[in-house]
């Protein structure tokens, strides 16, 4: 048996209320709601889960679910962690250690602000705390803006070029009733936007305006992964993990050698190799869009566009509804949801698209379901630091 397609994603679900819930949610609540939903969707009982994968939550989750998993993974290296979990689950299933893996995410990025609790002060001994924070670097936008400036310098691109990523991604959000920015009914600034809207929105970290940046919301999501015999016996449609790989280039941006390149080049190449497929075979791309820049640069790294020209996929309409390579069909971190670690959102959408369930009136309205049979998924974590890439194939 080959490692490629040794397991399939057999279901994907989200917490009941995501986005900006009326009542504050805890992260555990968001996890459990999604897990319960995916168990009901697939018919796989919680008790059959023997491998548990989450960004730091695995022991709490197993305890709460009342299971004693044989494989416990808490890899937490930012928003790409969940793509890595899929990689690790594939390996564990291939090795015969487990049959059914749960990958779960719950993060109350929005509610945490209202619930209060522990502050997020840095570890005084950490390199970033010592070398960046003293200079007023505060969070992801303050760093990613430096990468945008470097990209502009090297390739002659402009912030306006990247604004197209936000505009097109918003088009997808208008097709997703669950997207925070779906319409004026879901958010006062929801609905279609223009390049001018992106340019004229509030400056966060020059040259990144607000609409170049992702949302901060609540989100919970879970997927189940199973070996082929089980995957074939379920009422849901399997989506095969044809390729999976991960890589990293640095933790702190200080150590990022080339501000216009990420380790998605390496993880992408390895994932394609395992799948026996290449960029030209991809019919859908789900690329972490913490910022417009992140998605565009990732497209370059994955060979979907030449270096310096990733933004053209959006500007020329290829990534848009009806385009030749739909990208971020859920509305992205920019306009759908982004809880802080977005990787699970990518997995849920990838499953829906490749299992043909993207357009059920809840998760999508007319035009959201693509015809894609193949999908490349790439999570990016930290400060353009870590990447996990999956090549998924429809049954």
């Amino acid at each position, binding site marked *: 048996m080959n490692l490629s397609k040794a397991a399939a994603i057999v279901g994907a679900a989200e917490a009941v209320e995501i986005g900006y819930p009326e009542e504050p949610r805890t992260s555990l609540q968001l996890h459990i709601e999604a897990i319960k939903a995916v168990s009901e969707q697939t018919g796989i009982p919680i008790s059959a889960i023997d491998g548990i994968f989450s960004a730091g939550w695995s022991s709490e989750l197993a305890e709460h679910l009342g299971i004693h998993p044989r494989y416990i993974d808490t890899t937490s290296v930012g928003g790409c962690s969940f793509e890595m979990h899929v990689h690790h689950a594939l390996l564990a299933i291939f090795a015969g250690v487990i049959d059914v893996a749960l990958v779960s995410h719950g993060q109350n990025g929005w509610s945490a602000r209202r619930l209060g609790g522990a502050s997020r002060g840095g570890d005084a001994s950490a390199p970033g705390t010592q070398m960046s924070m003293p*200079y*007023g670097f505060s969070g992801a936008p303050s760093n990613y803006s*430096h*990468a945008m400036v470097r990209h502009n310098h090297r390739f002659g691109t402009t912030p306006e070029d990247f604004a197209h990523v936000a505009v097109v991604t918003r088009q997808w959000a208008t097709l997703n009733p669950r997207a925070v920015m779906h319409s004026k009914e879901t958010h006062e600034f929801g609905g279609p936007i223009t390049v001018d809207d992106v340019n004229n929105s*509030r400056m966060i*970290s*020059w040259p990144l305006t607000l609409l170049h940046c992702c949302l901060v919301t609540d989100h919970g999501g879970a997927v189940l992964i199973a070996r082929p015999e089980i995957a074939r016996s379920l009422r849901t449609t399997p989506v095969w993990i044809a390729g999976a790989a991960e890589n990293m280039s640095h933790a702190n941006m*200080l*150590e990022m050698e080339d*501000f216009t390149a990420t380790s998605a080049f390496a993880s992408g190449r390895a994932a394609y190799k395992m799948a026996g497929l290449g960029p030209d075979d991809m019919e859908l791309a789900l690329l972490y869009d913490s910022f417009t820049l992140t998605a565009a640069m990732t497209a370059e790294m994955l060979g979907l566009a030449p270096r310096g020209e990733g933004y053209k996929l959006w500007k020329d309409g290829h990534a848009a509804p009806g385009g030749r390579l739909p990208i971020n069909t859920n509305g992205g971190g920019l306009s759908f949801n982004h809880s802080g670690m977005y990787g699970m959102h990518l997995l849920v959408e990838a499953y829906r698209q490749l299992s043909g369930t993207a357009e059920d009136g809840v998760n999508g309205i007319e035009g959201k379901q693509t015809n894609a049979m193949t999908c490349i998924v790439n999570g990016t974590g930290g400060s353009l630091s870590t990447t996990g890439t999956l090549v998924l194939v429809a049954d």
Partner: protein
Amino acid sequence: MSIQWIEASGEGRIHTYAVQFRAFGGWAEDTPFVTAYIDLAEGDRMATVLRGVDASRPESISIGAKVKVEFEAASDDIHIPFFRVVEESAS
């Protein structure tokens, strides 16, 4: 492998930069200010806040511009290195 202290020249060039419009702690009062990554002449890279630049005109700052270190006293014991542009055009 032996690790040792060396005295750096304090010179470098702007690798890339950005203008911060929101910040926390003491920096919140100083927005907008220009942060940058500096390629030191010795080969390492440092983060900094650029001194002597106009945050309202970011396009007037050049990648590759020469900078020189300046130490500012944060307390009697602690001095923090900042960088000032000494030669505007990238060469």
